[in-house]
């Protein structure tokens, strides 16, 4: 009998997952650290931090790439995560039977490359873009065209794993990883593909990226104790901590997954999204867009608010996000919100930005599989304005059948996903 949801659409199963974070390579390492309440945040060693307001991040320093730059590191993290995910799914590593949907950080040339061009120009006086263009004309920098255009990371991943069709590189800011999964779910439901490879990756902790967020006052400046800086839902939270990460999920039509004897790790039951035209970086004061995204995700999944056992929060540790997220969840879940566990992985791995929605999807599915809820660490000073059960500081065992994962981003992006151990 065909596996369909209540709306008659093919059920979407997860058959493979892979992840890399500052806590470890592979989902086993990351999960062990995450459920032990360990932080991956540390002082930045990658570049000098003198003169910066924020000097900490959840960088991934165990992965070498050459030349070192955001697209190369993002590509490598994506490859590692996808190898693990496809390996677990039992599908072939070089002939993936579906499309690639990939959340990638917007890339651009970085300072070491600009400096190399400036030097190659021979200009010893004031340097302008005219000089850089003169150096570019030598043809010596041809490889950097490919390196710094937007489609390259996904194209290389598509080439490596033999995914079908035109790969989609996407950005919905800090909800990008969730959008990649949503696009995969939609493709399978439409019957275009039996499988989709959905990836979120971000290896963009470099001076300019960090400074851009710093200039918007978005980052925590509590540098003295790096492991304690990310404090989602705490009263003394003061901004997010940048993190790096990569996560990949193999989604499959549940019928074809079962037919080939694959192990089903869980289901993506529902997706919801809603735009917000209030402000470029702030959400509507009434919370309606986030509330609508959550309700749509529940409705799409065919579950009621009372079915949700755990919320994997967006929980960035910024004053604004955590307040709005608490308000939006309370609007949907009502009085139950005081006792409904909601925790933030970002308390330990930081905000992995483009990758966050995908990384947190993997953690949500591991919660379903293991019955263990990772904590929100650094929760020492509760915020009385947002009384939540944040699973403070220590992981908890619980029977979890359905998880809601929230992702919100600059530019009015709100994307929510519902995962289930079994279809409802």
């Amino acid at each position: 009998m065909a596996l369909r949801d209540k709306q008659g659409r093919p059920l979407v199963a997860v058959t493979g997952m892979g992840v890399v974070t500052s806590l470890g390579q592979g989902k086993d390492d990351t999960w062990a650290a995450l459920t032990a309440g360990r932080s991956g945040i540390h002082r930045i060693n990658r570049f000098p931090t003198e003169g910066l307001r924020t000097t900490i991040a959840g960088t991934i320093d165990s992965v070498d790439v050459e030349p070192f730059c955001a697209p190369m590191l993002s590509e490598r993290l994506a490859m590692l995560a996808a190898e693990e995910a496809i390996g677990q799914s039992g599908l072939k590593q070089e002939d993936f039977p579906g499309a690639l949907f990939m959340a990638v950080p917007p890339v651009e040339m970085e300072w070491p490359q600009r400096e190399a061009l400036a030097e190659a120009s021979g200009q010893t006086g004031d340097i302008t873009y005219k000089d850089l263009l003169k150096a570019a004309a030598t043809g010596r920098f041809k490889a950097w065209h490919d390196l710094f255009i937007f489609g390259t990371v996904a194209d290389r991943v598509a080439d490596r794993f033999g995914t079908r069709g035109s790969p989609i590189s996407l950005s919905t800011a800090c909800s990008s990883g969730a959008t990649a999964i949503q696009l995969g779910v939609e493709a399978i439901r439409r019957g275009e593909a039996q499988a989709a490879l959905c990836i979120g990756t971000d290896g963009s902790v470099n001076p300019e990226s960090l400074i851009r967020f710093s200039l918007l006052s978005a980052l925590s400046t509590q540098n003295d104790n790096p492991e304690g800086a990310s404090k989602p839902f705490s009263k003394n939270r003061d901004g997010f901590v940048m993190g790096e990460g990569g996560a990949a999920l193999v989604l499959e039509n549940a019928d074809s997954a079962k037919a080939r004897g694959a192990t089903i790790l869980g289901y993506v039951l529902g997706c919801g999204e809603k735009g917000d035209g209030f402000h470029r970086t702030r959400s509507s004061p009434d919370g309606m867009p986030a509330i609508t995204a959550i309700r749509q995700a529940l409705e799409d999944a065919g579950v009621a608010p009372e079915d949700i056992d755990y919320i994997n929060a967006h929980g960035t540790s910024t004053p604004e996000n955590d307040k709005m997220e608490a308000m939006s969840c309370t609007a949907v879940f009502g009085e139950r919100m005081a006792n409904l566990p909601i925790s933030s992985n970002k308390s330990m791995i930081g905000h992995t930005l483009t990758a966050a929605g995908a990384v947190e999807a993997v953690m949500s599915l591991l919660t379903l599989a293991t019955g263990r809820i990772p904590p929100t660490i650094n929760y020492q000073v509760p915020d009385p304005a947002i009384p939540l059960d944040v699973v403070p500081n220590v992981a908890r065992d619980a029977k979890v059948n359905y998880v809601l994962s929230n992702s919100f981003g600059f530019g009015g992006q709100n994307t929510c996903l519902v995962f289930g151990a079994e279809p409802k």
Partner: protein
Amino acid sequence: MRDVVITGIGLVSSAGEGLEAHLTALAEDGAPKTDAASFEPFPVHPVGALEWDRQIPKKADQRQMEAWQKLGCYAAGLALDAAAAKEDAALKSRMQLIVAAGGGERDYAVDGQILTGLAKADNPGVFLNEHLMGDLRPTLFLAQLSNLLAGNISIVHGVTGASRTFMGEESSGVDAIRIARERIASGQDDIFLVGGAYNAERPDVLLIYEMGGFLWKKPFASVWERPADGGGMILGSGACFLVLESREHAASRGVKPLASIAGIASDRSRRRAGSVEAALHSLSKQLNARPDVVLSGATGIRGITEEERAALKDIAPNAAVHATADLVGHTVEAQAPTGVALAAGLIAGGQAGEALVTSIGHWRGEGAIRLTKA
């Protein structure tokens, strides 16, 4: 599956503003507007002066955007006007948005000053930190972020169904339209605003393409003539947005469709001699294309441009072939939407019954879009 029709077009480029201006320029077939001086030796197709206030009424909003975002926001407003959707707040609050975007835009003066200083600095890392912290405008970041064109369209025009931003140069323009069409055809959504924007008048984008050796550095010549002389592309500033909806949805609003999007196919291949020609044959076969007009996204780059020409001779031997880049320049992410807009205009005006829009990326990605009478 539901039919998907185009009910609104917003278009700005060096050829002017609006669909009519572009169709007139296409019919006149004269030399397009180029600026050979500003970025010498690189010609660009500059966008004409626009009265921003007409589509972006608040000066505060205009100040928050860099040129590519303003162009996109302006064209999005034109498309909403053309589709009779601008004043319908309820409709716009459930309208979905897919934007094909690059990003960036830099403070060129600051970059130059930092590079000059870095060469002499005792401690370059510290110098870089201090100057980025002190000299970057905080809001420049929001004018650089790829998804903030969509964000600005939501803010300025109230299109707030939900937005997704696709990246990846030319392919992102084709795939944005493809995914929107599939979501409408399958019944998931009723109405979309889809498109892209590009600012060519930027040294940083010229730099990327010059590193790769892709730019034409001589006076304007048609894309078809350039390969014999080494080949190359001329970037163009412009933006194009389309309102797509199901035929039933358009009818229920009493809006007349311009054309129907009968099919979209896109793929990637490892490029080698002959792969573009083979891809175009395969795409047109998938689409069952029998066009009497072709809007080609040809770039003028050697090899792939001749291959496209050869493929089109087989696929559409009797069709009129227009290169979009010979009208507006190469607008990268906006190129496929612009081709679709022109094709829809020709079909709506009775000058064609079926059109094929091609998109052969300068470096990767092949796509084709088939349009038919509404």
